[in-house]
């Protein structure tokens, strides 16, 4: 394994190694989760917006976060090998169509999963051919693939779904779905606890009820994609080689890494994951509908950037974005209004920390903003619901604007590279 060791030394720059040592341990993450839960519970108790931790919301969060997370994971694979993938949205659209199509005509949701894989793979391979073999600009190719995929899905839907009961050019008939796995008794037990609205206890019950009543085999399989991707990309020599193509393809090539093949694999996997996200969306809705993805491919990309090109951060980002989606579906305006209080409290905590560190100006500004948010909370009864769908994008933009110095994308990301190129 000497080859691999030397690649690590050249590839991983100092910044990342320093970041690695600062990365929170799992215990630290657990503390944070407990504190977050207590805060949310406090907000719920104060505002009476009970839906912000209800089992329904948690279940919806999981289901809505997964398509985003899978698109983001697709982006992660691709970008770690040095290929920017703006075509995720298109690959996801192909996944929704093929997923629904296969599931409907085979009467089996499992075949639908295969359909999602096939659809995404078409998009992924196309992107790989254009960007890796022909060296086309990656953004251009991604945009072209999204245009092509939109047209393809529309045409095929017209061909396959017209004449089917309830189907037509813009939507499929209802498709067979995965059954939810229910832990016996959990629903009524946790539901009872939840209805008491006790501090923390009911919130934990809500989370547990969401976890025990809304998972399908498909959901569990997709959640497992995260540890699997992390393991393959960060703990195997294959993953190291793949990532080295995204950091310095010429150096990788000089060490005998088949850069083109690695990029092909990575971009194809990227398409498959985005396609799975699409198939999941179709399964979740029980139908294929035109425009169903609604920009989730792009939110996935946002989640990946939010997560600093790492699977853990990406999962956190996708959960956050899935949660904003879920909250607006359930008692939207009230729940979001309650979350304003949460934001205010969080800002006070951050502000206090900054003041304690004698960062007077930053701390004062943050506390000032907290006061403004609190003022907004106290003078209104609900928030403009129109802005809620835009929150993931707003958060990503803020993260990029304020913390872009801490983000580190793969060094050779987005740069076309040809075999034998010197730098």
């Amino acid at each position, binding site marked *: 394994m000497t080859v691999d060791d030397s690649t690590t030394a050249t590839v991983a720059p100092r910044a990342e190694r320093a970041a690695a040592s600062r990365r929170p341990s799992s215990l630290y993450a657990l503390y944070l989760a407990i504190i977050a839960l207590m805060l949310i519970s406090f907000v719920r108790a104060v505002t009476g917006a009970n839906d912000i931790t209800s089992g329904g919301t948690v279940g919806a969060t999981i289901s809505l976060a997964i398509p985003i997370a899978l698109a983001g994971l697709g982006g992660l694979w691709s970008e770690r090998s040095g290929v920017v993938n703006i075509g995720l949205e298109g690959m996801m659209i192909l996944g929704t169509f093929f997923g629904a199509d296969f599931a409907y005509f085979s009467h089996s949701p499992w075949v639908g999963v295969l359909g999602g894989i096939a659809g995404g793979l078409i998009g992924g391979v196309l992107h790989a051919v254009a960007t890796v073999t022909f060296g*086309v600009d990656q953004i251009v190719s991604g945009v072209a693939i999204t245009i092509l995929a939109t047209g393809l899905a529309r045409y095929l839907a017209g061909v396959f779904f017209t004449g089917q009961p309830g189907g037509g050019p813009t939507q499929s008939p209802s498709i067979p779905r995965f059954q939810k796995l229910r832990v016996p008794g959990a629903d009524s037990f946790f539901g009872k606890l939840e209805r008491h609205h006790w501090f923390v206890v009911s919130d934990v019950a809500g989370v547990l009820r969401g976890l025990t009543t809304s998972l399908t085999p498909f959901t569990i399989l997709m959640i497992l994609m995260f540890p699997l991707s992390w393991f393959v990309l960060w703990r195997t020599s294959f993953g190291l080689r793949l990532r080295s193509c995204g950091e310095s393809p010429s150096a990788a090539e000089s060490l005998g890494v088949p850069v083109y093949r690695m990029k092909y694999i990575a971009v194809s996997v990227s398409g498959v994951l985005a396609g799975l996200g699409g198939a999941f969306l179709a399964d979740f809705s029980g139908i294929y509908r035109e425009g169903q993805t609604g920009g989730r491919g792009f939110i996935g990309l946002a989640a990946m950037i939010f997560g600093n090109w790492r699977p853990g951060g990406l999962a956190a980002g996708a959960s956050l974005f899935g949660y904003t989606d879920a909250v607006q579906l359930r008692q939207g305006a009230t729940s979001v209004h309650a979350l304003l209080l949460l934001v205010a409290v969080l800002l006070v905590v951050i502000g206090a920390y900054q003041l304690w560190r004698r960062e007077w100006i930053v701390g004062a500004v943050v506390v000032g903003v907290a006061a403004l948010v609190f003022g907004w909370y106290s003078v209104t009864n609900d928030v403009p619901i129109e802005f809620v769908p*835009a929150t993931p*994008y707003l958060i990503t933009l803020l993260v990029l604007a304020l913390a872009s110095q801490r983000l580190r994308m793969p060094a050779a990301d987005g740069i076309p590279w040809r075999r034998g190129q010197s730098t």
Partner: protein
Amino acid sequence: MRERLNRLLLNVIAVLVAAVFAGGITSLILLTRGDSPTFVISQMWDYGTQRSTELTIMNGATVYYLSAVAVAIGFRMNLFNIGVDGQYRLAAMLAGAFAGSVSLPNGLRQTATILVAMLAGAAWAGLVALLKVRRGVSEVISTIMLNFIATGLIAYLMRPSIFGHRFGNDVTTKPIPKSGQVGGLDLIPNSGGKVYGLILLAVAVGVAFHVVVNYTRFGFDLRATGRSATAAQASGVNVKKMTAATLVMSGATAGLVGMPALLGDSHSYSSITFQTGLGFTGIAIALLGRNNPIGIAFAAVLWSFLDNSATILDLNNIPKEVVQITQGVVVLSVVIAYELVRRLALVRQQRAVGRAVAPPPGTPVVEGAPA
């Protein structure tokens, strides 16, 4: 001159090859369903050359042209303005609200509306510029994010308590009275309608784009920065300033995209008439037209022809979306063809240079570098 002609010829060949390829793929797709490609082409041609369809094609192409030029301005400097979509919708909405509520004398009102649209588009793109220049945020990501944020902002501003105006089932901005509209031109006689008057604006934008990029110092700096930002910086170009200026110009042009329809047809903004996706189409058309004002004009007409003549296919029981596959394949294969042509041109250039600097035959070849 000969070199330029050669390159033009190569590009034309590239487009033809891509078109034939896209046609082939589309034919295959049609054949698998048992439809005849020749029938589809003859149907589309017959329908597309009718007077009334020509009118919709012209009107559609006008809008596409503006959108593609907005994208092309950025492209010439290697900037991806994927945010034309958000910029144009926000601009159309604000301009619609402005024109519906402010009363100004005829002529001035239209001019002011167009200026408001340009300002709105420029401001929204200005955010992108600010993020890019000050914070180093890639414009690809920030424009995508701002498209979605624009959707939220527009939905909020279209509340009946702000700019919204209930109109049947739809919420629109206040309708623009006759004195604030722009009349049509009777370019296609007997078509049963008129071409958008603002087609003249589109032509003016195309000419201005050509002149600014090719014959001004700003344009020279822009092209130089697009080729190599570091080289441009070294030769005294303020790259940050150029980046910001280009994005703002691109945004201002994007603001114009909604104007022909707003002032010439719908006379009010609604999210149904001003749909998302126009910015993406603009990117595709700019790529097809190689960011060249004349190339874009051809591409816009082609795109609009495919869009509008395909409506006949539905009557023949063929999903009209098949042309979207053609469009997608054309774009993808054309960018690949352009890339291959670029490489070919590079190889030829290197050979030519090689021949020019090669020692005359007979001189001894020195192996290795001198000590």
